[in-house]
C-alpha cells in the first residue's frame, strides 16, 4: 500500500514536472536558423560544390590522371586526357554530374595535385537535371583554393615543360646508375 502511494506520487510529480519543464522552454532561445535570410556558418572544409583550382602561377593543376574518377563511389566524374606541346597532361574535358555526386570528398582525397577541391557552398538547386552537369568551364576557378603556394610540377620529379629530372624543389639529382663512385 505504501509502495503504491509512493509510486503514484512519484509518477504524478514526474508528469507535472515534465509539463512544467516543457513550458519553461517558451523562454528559451530557438535553435532554428531561418535559412534564406540567415546564413549558417559553414567551415572552410565543408564539403559542397566542387571546383578545379589553379596553381600559384595560374596554370591548371589537374593532370588528368583520372584518380578522382576512380575514387568516386558514384562514378560521376568523367575526365578526358590530352597533352600540350611540352608533354604536360591536362584534361580536355572535365565533367561532374552533381545530380549524382554525394559530396563525400573522396575525389579531393585521391587527387595528387590538390586540383579538385570541395567548397563551402551548397546552393546549387536547379529545375532541370541537365543543368546539374558541370563542365570544365563551370568548374575551373582562377584561385588556388585551400592550398596556396602549392605547385605540383615544381616538386614533382618529372621532366616537363623545360624542367628536367632532378631540377624540382627539394629534389636530388637522379642517381647515375652507370658509375660505381659513391
Amino acid at each position, binding site marked *: 500500500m505504501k509502495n503504491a502511494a509512493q509510486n503514484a506520487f512519484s509518477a504524478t510529480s514526474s*508528469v507535472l514536472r*515534465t*509539463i512544467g519543464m*516543457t*513550458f519553461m*522552454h517558451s523562454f528559451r532561445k*530557438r535553435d532554428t536558423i531561418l535559412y534564406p535570410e540567415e546564413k549558417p556558418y559553414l567551415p572552410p572544409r565543408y564539403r559542397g560544390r566542387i571546383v578545379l583550382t589553379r596553381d600559384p602561377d595560374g596554370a591548371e593543376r589537374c593532370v588528368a590522371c583520372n584518380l578522382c574518377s576512380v575514387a568516386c563511389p558514384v562514378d560521376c566524374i568523367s575526365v578526358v586526357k590530352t597533352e600540350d606541346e611540352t608533354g604536360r597532361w591536362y584534361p580536355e574535358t572535365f565533367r561532374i554530374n552533381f545530380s549524382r555526386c554525394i559530396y563525400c570528398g573522396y575525389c579531393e582525397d585521391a587527387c595528387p595535385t590538390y586540383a579538385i577541391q570541395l567548397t563551402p557552398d551548397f546552393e546549387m538547386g536547379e529545375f532541370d537535371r541537365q543543368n546539374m552537369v558541370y563542365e570544365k568551364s563551370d568548374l575551373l576557378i582562377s584561385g588556388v583554393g585551400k592550398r596556396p603556394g602549392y605547385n605540383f610540377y615544381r616538386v614533382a620529379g618529372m621532366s616537363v615543360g623545360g624542367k628536367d629530372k632532378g631540377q624540382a624543389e627539394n629534389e636530388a639529382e637522379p642517381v647515375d646508375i652507370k658509375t660505381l663512385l659513391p
Partner: protein
Amino acid sequence: MIFGISEHEILSIVVTAILTIVTLMGSVIMAALMIPIERRLLGLWQDRYGPNRVGPFGSLQVVADMIKIFFKEDWIPPFADKAVFVIAPAIIMFTTLMAFAVIPFTESWTIANLNVGILFLLAMSSLGVYSVIFAGWSSDNKYALLGSMRTAAQMISYEVFMGLSLLGVVLLAGSFNLGDIVESQRGMWNVIPQFPAFVIFFIAGCAEIHRAPFDLPEAEQELTAGYHTEYSGMKFGMFFVGEYLGIVLISCLVTTLFFGGWLGPWLPGFVWFFLKAFFFMCFFILLRAATVRPRYDQLMAFGWKVLLPIALLNVAITGAIVVAQS
C-alpha cells in the same frame, strides 16, 4: 400574427438561428485556427519556429493546407464499404458540433437551454464512438480496425469516469442545466471544491477526443494512422478538424463546469469565456508536447483502477456533504 405564430416567437426563432450560425462558424473557425496555433506552440516548446512563412506569423498556413486538401484526390479504397466509409467522418463532425448547442457562452448565448444539458453532452460524445468504429470497420484494413477497436474500448471506459466526475458538479448545482451550473459558481468556482472531479474530467476528456497522451487510436508509430489510415483528402480533413473541434469542446466544457464559464469581473462575459477556454486549448497542446503515450493495458488499468475509485469516492463525499448541509 403570421401563420398563427406571434411576433415574439418569430423573433426568438430568428435570434436562435443567428446564434446557431454564429456558434457553428465560430467553433469550426476556432478549430481550424487551432491547427496553426498548435503547430506554432509545439514549435515554441520544442525550441523551433513551426510554420512561419505563409502570412503573418504563419497564420495563413492553414488556408494553404485547406486549399491543398481540397484539391487532393478523394480516394475511396475499392475494398471499402462505401456508404459507411463516407458517413464515418460526417458523424464525428455532427456529434461534436451538436454538443456545442448546449454550451452557455454567455448568459443569453445558449442555443438550446436544455434542462438535461449534461446528459445531452455525454450522449453526443458517446455517439462520436460510432464515427471511429465505422471508419475502422469500413476501411477493411488491419491497422484501421485495430485502431478503432482501441478507440472504442478507450472511449467507452473513459466515458464512465467522465460522467461520474460530472455528478459532483451536478450535486453542487442541483441541476443538469449548464447555465444553472455556471450560475451556481458565482461564489466559488467548482474547481476548488471539485478538484478531483476536474482532474478526472480533464483526463477523461483528453482520452475522449484521443489527444496525446491518450492518442493510442492513432498511434503513428504502431498503427500508421489508426482508424483513418485509408482516408485522404477532405474526408481526412474532417477527422482532423473533428479532433480539433473536440479540443475546443472539451475546453469549453471545462470552462463551463469548473471555471465559472462567463463569470468574471470587468470584462464582458464572452471575453472571459473565450480567455478561459483558450487557456485550456493551449494546455492541451502543452500536454501533447510534454507527455508520453502510455501502453494500452496501462491506459485501461489507469482508468479502471485509479480514476474510477477516485470518481466514485468524489461523488460519495460530495453527496454526503450536500446532504449534511441541507
